[in-house]
């Protein structure tokens, strides 16, 4: 049964006649395999989200961006807890788990969200995020498919990176990714503005974005484009 499922998902990933193995395709395979509305693949390291390598639609993109900005959400919990995290009714959850993440995610159309760790053996890479545009529990079949899809996705991501030269991110990973480079540029700028470390500057940026109810990347863009400055007496925080 599991072997059939794995074969079916691998056939989606490597269609007859060949096809491009890249992160965007991988995200699409996760959607097809599980029958949900959209999927995203988030890389994490330590406790922090590093960025998204794939998101299949605008809502998935926002789900990934929100988690990156806020440091909370189904992917981040799935990664930290090392187990699937299921929220079948995001608008009316039995326990509110993600105070900041939930309202904008619901507004964007995510009514159920599911996080699955991306893992190879004991190595954790991040999490697979699935969402549906209506409240629903995953069926046993969907749940089993999601587990296998996450396992295959984790392997596939490592295989993509294995082909890249040392120290360089694989092009197949980079193509559809959003590693939020603008946020790191802004952190560098704010570190000079406030004369603090880059890590401290990033905390200030996060705090500001949260206070304004904006995405971290949007605030960062304002800093890089010099529409927003920190530490000149008119400190925005």
């Amino acid at each position, binding site marked *: 049964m599991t072997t059939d499922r794995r074969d079916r998902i691998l056939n989606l990933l490597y269609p007859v006649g060949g096809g491009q193995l890249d992160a965007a395709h991988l995200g699409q395979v996760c959607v097809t395999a599980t029958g949900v509305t959209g999927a995203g693949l988030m890389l994490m390291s330590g406790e922090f989200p590093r960025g998204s390598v794939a998101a299949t639609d605008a809502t998935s993109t926002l789900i990934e961006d929100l988690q990156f900005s806020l440091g909370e959400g189904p992917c981040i919990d799935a990664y930290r807890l090392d187990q699937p995290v299921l929220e079948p009714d995001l608008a009316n959850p039995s326990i509110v788990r993600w105070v900041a993440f939930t309202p904008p995610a619901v507004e964007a159309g995510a009514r159920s969200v599911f996080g699955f760790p991306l893992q190879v053996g004991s*190595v954790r890479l991040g999490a697979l995020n699935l969402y549906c545009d209506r409240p629903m529990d995953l069926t046993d079949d969907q749940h089993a498919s999601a587990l296998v899809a996450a396992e295959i996705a984790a392997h596939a991501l490592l295989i993509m990176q294995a082909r890249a030269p040392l120290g360089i991110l694989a092009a197949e990973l980079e193509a559809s990714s959003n590693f939020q480079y603008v946020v790191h*540029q802004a952190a560098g700028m704010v570190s000079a503005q406030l004369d603090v470390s880059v890590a401290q500057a990033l905390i200030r940026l996060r705090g500001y974005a949260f206070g304004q109810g904006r995405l971290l990347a949007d605030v960062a863009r304002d800093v890089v484009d010099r529409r927003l400055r920190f530490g000149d007496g008119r400190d925005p925080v």
Partner: protein
Amino acid sequence: MWSIGACASVTGGTRCDTPHSNLAPGAYYSRGGSADPPAAIEPRTTIRKRAQVATRDVVTRTMVELADTLVDDFDVVDLLTLLTDRCVEAFDVEAAGLMLAAPVGGKLQVMASSTSTMRDLELYEIQSSDGPCIECYRTGLAVSDQNLDTTAQRWPLFTPAAKDAGFRSVSAVPMRLRTTTIGALNLFRTSNTRFSASDQAGAQAFADVATIAILQHRAAFDAQALNEQLNHALNSRILIEQAKGRLAERAGIDVNEAFDWFRAYARSHNLRLVDVAQAFLDAQLTSASLKSSSPGR
């Protein structure tokens, strides 16, 4: 992680220090204590029966030991040494040796041997590319109980060397998972006693457990290394973005121009971009010195 160099530490000494070759294995391993009569006056059938029970005990115990070894961070050389030692006990052979193909390149290495004579012989097998272990690895098929008086044509180089070392018969089982053969386990006898089909099956079971363990270990190690590689690549990129931002702010330029300054400095000083970025973030390099190498200076 296993390495070629690690072999020396486990193969240096003689491990054949138990007097099993003179005793029925049952006598040596019986748990009956002092009440047991001397083995010599027992009927032969009883000895054989006890030997079989004892062999099963060793096999069971070894399986448990192997399973215990397979924790997160086990040492492959330790595992294989345990395996060859237990083969000697369980199957009443005088020596056991194990070869593994390197994960990259496939070159065979002696990974564990129960005696130093065995080790020399295995090294000779690899050098001369001739012998039961080599054949077993190449074909992926077991070599069952070959009397060395009959193998001069099959292994022209190996046979005389093995006889010189005092061995009379050999067996080998592949370390194989489905279509992948990663090595072979060799069992040698100095007597003409037969290596039974159940001994062969037992040896294969040992080899199977070790094979799965090694393949899983390798896969986990590969994943770990690749994930580190991925994080390293991402960290380098993030560091450069941070440095671009800080330089842009310090020098009053935009981030693209900041990148050009870093790149020009790295080129003219023959440094890696990421190292230049790190030096700037660590305040070991000023924006003034970066500017001095900049394209538009």
